[in-house]
């Protein structure tokens, strides 16, 4: 079984998973890794920073002579936590609401769907700015804000998938053998909804990580410590781009590869199970 999964998901999938694992592990164990201190100023007398990439600074340094490589790894901590917390929140709240609405239908569905639509037609970034600007810019606030934004898309998918499956005959069959609502949701529907949700979770994590970057560009990212968005931002000025492009492009590449890996892995999982679904 696992052998077929390995084969069917393809080498690129495992490459993507590998990248995500590396980034996560680096982020997780950053304080114990033999990397430079991300907050230290490695000023070289007589040379004005930023220093271009070299043996000492693999990704170069920023304008303040701080090591970009270390900062990117520490930035991953924030970005990944935001991505994870946000999507976990979205999954739990949105997933539950979506499944329940899709299963119960009727008035519950109407109310829940309407709430979803309200959130979906509200430009999500505006909501994020509203909350972070008026509350505070702590890691938890931002992660949960993005989590709130994930509720509607996740919920809508959960609802749609549930609706699609709730019409299948195996659900009717389950009801025919006397299964209760809770059992049908947990045993019959959940296993089917979980796969597309899992794929969406990966995509959603990517979206949350990108959203942090967007907030950073509006000056509303986490206050303290490096994040990928903030790292890109400090390198994105015209002068920095012209004279020291590595400041922006280092984190851009890492962010991009991570988002790409998340997207790709999510996509593969989805299409893998879609194929199964068809029964090939």
């Amino acid at each position, binding site marked *: 079984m696992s052998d077929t999964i390995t084969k069917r998901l393809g080498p690129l999938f495992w490459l993507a998973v590998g990248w995500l694992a590396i980034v996560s592990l680096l982020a997780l164990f950053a304080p114990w890794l033999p990397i430079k201190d991300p907050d230290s100023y490695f000023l070289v007398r007589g040379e004005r920073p930023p220093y271009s990439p070299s043996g000492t600074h693999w990704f170069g340094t920023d304008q303040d002579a701080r090591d970009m490589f270390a900062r990117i790894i520490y930035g991953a901590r924030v970005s990944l936590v935001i991505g994870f917390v946000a999507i976990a929140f979205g999954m739990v709240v949105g997933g539950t609401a979506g499944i329940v609405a899709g299963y119960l239908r009727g008035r519950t569905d109407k109310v829940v769907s309407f709430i979803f639509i309200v959130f979906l037609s509200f430009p999500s970034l505006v909501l994020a700015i509203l909350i972070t600007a008026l509350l505070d810019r702590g890691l938890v606030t931002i992660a949960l804000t993005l989590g709130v934004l994930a509720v509607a898309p996740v919920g809508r998918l959960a609802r749609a998938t549930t609706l699609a499956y709730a019409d*299948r*005959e*195996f659900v*009717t*069959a*389950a*009801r*025919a*053998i*006397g*299964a*209760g609502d809770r*059992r049908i949701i947990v*045993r*019959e529907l959940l*296993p*089917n909804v979980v*796969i597309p949700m899992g794929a969406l979770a990966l995509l959603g994590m990517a979206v949350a990580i990108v959203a942090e970057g967007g907030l950073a560009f509006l000056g509303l990212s986490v206050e303290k410590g490096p994040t990928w968005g903030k790292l890109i931002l400090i390198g994105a000025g015209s002068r920095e781009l012209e004279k020291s492009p590595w400041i922006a492009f280092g984190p851009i590449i890492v962010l991009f590869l991570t988002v790409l890996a998340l997207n790709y892995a999510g996509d593969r999982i989805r299409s893998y199970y879609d194929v*199964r*679904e068809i*029964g*090939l």
Partner: protein
Amino acid sequence: MTDAPHLRPDIDAVLRVRDLVVDFPMKKGQRVHAVSGVSFDVARGETLGIVGESGCGKSTTGRAIMQMPRPTSGSVEFESAEMTALGRSDLREARTRVQMIFQDPISSLNPRRRVRDSVLDPLDIWQRGTDEERSDRVDAILEEVGIDPARAHDSRPHQFSGGQCQRIAIARALVLDPTLIICDEPVSALDVSVQAQVLNLLEDLKAAHGLTMIFIAHDLAVVKNVSDRVAVMYLGRLCEIADPDRLYARPAHPYTRVLLDSVPVPDPALGRATTGISGEPPSPIAPPSGCRFHPRCPAADERCRVEVPEMTEIEPGHHVACHHPLVTQVAISS
């Protein structure tokens, strides 16, 4: 509305359906009149075949018996209990004694669950016996329908063929020892060579378990093969009901006649009868007045347009709802 002379008060009926009406709301306030006043009964150990074209309400009738969804009106008396009056938990319990088998074998099994679990589930829900007893029961049933329990233990539906999935679905329906099985087009998605296997299996199981069965299908030959009594439906109404040999030999309703004439016979020697009917069934949203078949019926007159025909017995055990029943015999000789 209908006094239903075709119901048999004197038999040991497992199921009595009276004046069953099922409407579905549509957009713009319209309603689909899927089933309009259908009555029938099923004796213990009997197989009732329900036959008709798509949209005639035969599947809806089957599901309405299970109260999925609950019918708009009418009575469904199952083993002396009025299903339409049962509360949630009573209904759940009652449903275990009526089971359904569906048309699409693959979609009737949860694609993400191991098939053995799907069969085991009913026992789990009702906590029948010990774990071990349940397990043994499942294995026995799987063996009986011709599925290797070991394979079922760690395989998911997509690893089985359509015929095998249908066998598994049958096993799941049987595992709770139901009284009544409702088969909704159980073989129409299967290949002809596999169809015979499943039909034979159903016949065997029925005998072995003493089942009562409702067999819903569009294929007249298939219905004839398995049924003890056949009901013909058209546009939500019952047209004719009789035992199959009588019905197929002497159809009294013009529609039954047309249906039988339309079936291609795999024997060139028999030649082809021309059907003498045109058009297709109208929409159940706005069914015709009077006899619903009258716009297509060669024998229709003014009365048919206005008056809904009542069920009348034209020979013992043969009832027809027609103002002008056919009396001529159709020759289907072998």
